[in-house]
């Protein structure tokens, strides 16, 4: 199979699932002709028409409300918020409506909310990392794939499930290429994957930071240190079991996130592992996350705020030094 980009993988999953299930439709801005600002629904307009590829005004609250109401009434909407930063205009619809419908009203809420996330250009208001915010809300699931195959497989699971899913796609991965699965290759939520096996230290992360963790693992390998890199793929549910199994082997854990470290997924993983795996640890769980600052326009500024491969590498080396001492 020809490799496809991360955005094309999303489009493929949408196309296959919309063909399979006519309850699925997508709404958002600039979808029908442009195919979304990242090409994530390119060509769907031509194949499925304006009823199922619906161009919306820039009314985020109404976009999500339309999704919530339609999901209550037998449909499977995908709401494309463009940048996930635009979810702030619809936060009540996401947190107080979509997330609580099953619990309050006893109804399935098969709603997918897609947003481009992660840190890249365009400064402070287009680069919020919200995965831990959404994961914190009971009722929401959060998928945050790092590869085209995962984007496709996870989206299929989201479109076949009954829960509201926040589907976060990193800006810097939009054009990354890879093989993807076929129409029935779904990837379950709550199943992390080991991207690189290792025995000396575990590095757990997700989304674009997986690439940086892999870089760090390469550098460590040059010195004979075998790092195991785990990609969480979904942060709610969060597969702590795979992390724990790895820690049982390595005794060391570096938890990495591109989001501000305070109150992050890395913090949650760290807390969980030290509570349940304390006797297996040879040192403290170390978090590597963004500094507590908004994202600036200049790469010279923002690249110092988010973790780099060298930061992950340094954290791993520091942990390993404890053994040598």
């Amino acid at each position, binding site marked *: 199979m020809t490799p496809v980009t991360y955005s094309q993988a999303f489009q493929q999953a949408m196309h296959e699932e919309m063909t399979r299930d006519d309850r699925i439709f997508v709404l958002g801005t600039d979808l029908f002709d442009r195919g979304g600002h990242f090409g994530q629904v390119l060509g769907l307009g031509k194949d499925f028409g304006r*009823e199922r590829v619906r161009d919306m005004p820039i009314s985020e609250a109404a976009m999500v409300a339309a999704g*919530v*109401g339609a999901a209550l*009434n*037998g449909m499977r909407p995908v709401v494309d918020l463009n940048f996930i930063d635009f979810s702030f205009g619809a936060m009540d619809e996401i947190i107080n409506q979509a997330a609580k419908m099953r619990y309050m009203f006893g109804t399935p809420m098969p709603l997918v909310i897609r947003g481009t996330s992660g840190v890249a250009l365009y400064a402070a208001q287009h680069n919020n990392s919200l995965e831990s915010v959404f994961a914190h809300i009971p009722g929401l699931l959060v998928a945050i794939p790092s590869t085209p195959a995962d984007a496709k497989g996870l989206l299929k699971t989201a479109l076949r499930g009954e*829960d509201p899913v926040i589907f976060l796609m990193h800006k810097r991965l939009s054009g990354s290429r890879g093989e993807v699965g076929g129409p029935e290759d779904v990837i379950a939520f709550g199943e992390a994957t080991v991207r690189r096996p290792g025995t000396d230290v575990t590095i757990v992360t997700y989304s674009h930071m997986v690439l940086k963790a892999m870089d760090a693992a390469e550098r460590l390998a040059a010195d004979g240190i075998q790092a195991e890199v785990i990609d969480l793929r979904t942060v709610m549910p969060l597969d702590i079991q795979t992390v724990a199994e790895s820690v049982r082997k390595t005794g060391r854990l570096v938890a990495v996130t591109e989001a501000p470290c305070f109150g992050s997924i890395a913090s949650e993983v760290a807390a969980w592992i030290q509570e349940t795996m304390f006797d297996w640890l040879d040192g403290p769980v170390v978090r590597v996350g963004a500094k507590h600052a908004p994202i600036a326009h200049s790469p010279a500024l923002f690249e110092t705020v988010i973790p780099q491969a060298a930061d992950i590498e340094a954290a791993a080396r520091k942990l390993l030094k404890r053994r040598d001492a």
Partner: protein
Amino acid sequence: MTQLESAGAPARQFLPIDIGGVDVAGATRWLRTMLLIREFEAALDPLSMSGKIPGGLHLSIGQEAVAVGISAALEPQDLVACAHRSHHHALAKGLTPRSVMAELFGKATGCRGGRGGSMHLADLSIGFLGGNGIVGAGLGIAMGASLGSHLRGADQVAVGIFGDGGANTGRTWESVNIAAVWKLPLIIICENNMYAVETETERLTGGGSVSRRAEGFGLPVRTVDGNDVAEMYRVTREARERAARGDGPTFIEAKTYRYEGHSTGQIINYRTIDEVEDWRGTKDSIQRLRIALHEVGALEDDAFDELVRTSRETVQDAIAFAEGSPLPDPIEATREVTAVELGLGNAR
């Protein structure tokens, strides 16, 4: 006391309503539901204040005709989503007094098993998509539901109800706009009871009129006496027919009044007794329907008194049912958060 008995105020001071064209049996059913709502609501205040019902409640006394007129105009498959003041809409849509009362008591037999309470009454099986604790949110859900009806090609209309307070939240107009441009089968109802919690809406609403504001969206706008159940019915019915034809949404502003405070146990010092008495004494929806039915010879005084008595019995039965019902099993507190297993120790 709800002061409903026929020995009350003389008939002539109430504004007349026109029930011409409405069948008398139907109008009598409306009256029965309006009385049920009023008696139901009147019984709640002491139950809330004594703590038998946890928390305060937003009572709908005075606004019965809005709910009954709307529901009368709908087909059974139609959908209703409303706001925090929701008991009248829930009962009018067909939730039983027992299931609503038990829900308010937080009992297992309530319509949501004690998870919802006063602001989150719901029964999707009869098309009641819930009250809502957040001002303006119910309309958005109804708008989305009407999109679902449209996409499924169903003969189904959704009704989104918000208050005058909701007319000043931005997302209300986001939904009105989408419904208008997409010609959704939606009926948009602003239930204007004159006060946004404790502030006169007039002082808060630029341009002074919710209806005039709606006109800018290019859809039919009707301003209705919300205490005239027959007019509420006719206008909503017309809107339903229009929506079902595929001609799009209608905006209805129903002018009404709540006799009680924003919620139970509140001291009212932001409006005059004269104002309240004027509404009670000239515009009360129940008395106006009673008089109209009386004038066509369809309702004698003793028949009205019998309806009042029956309503009270139904409410007492609902209270006894709620009091006698079991509390929910605590395991329910963490069930049904998501469909998938989260691995967080939640009950399945």
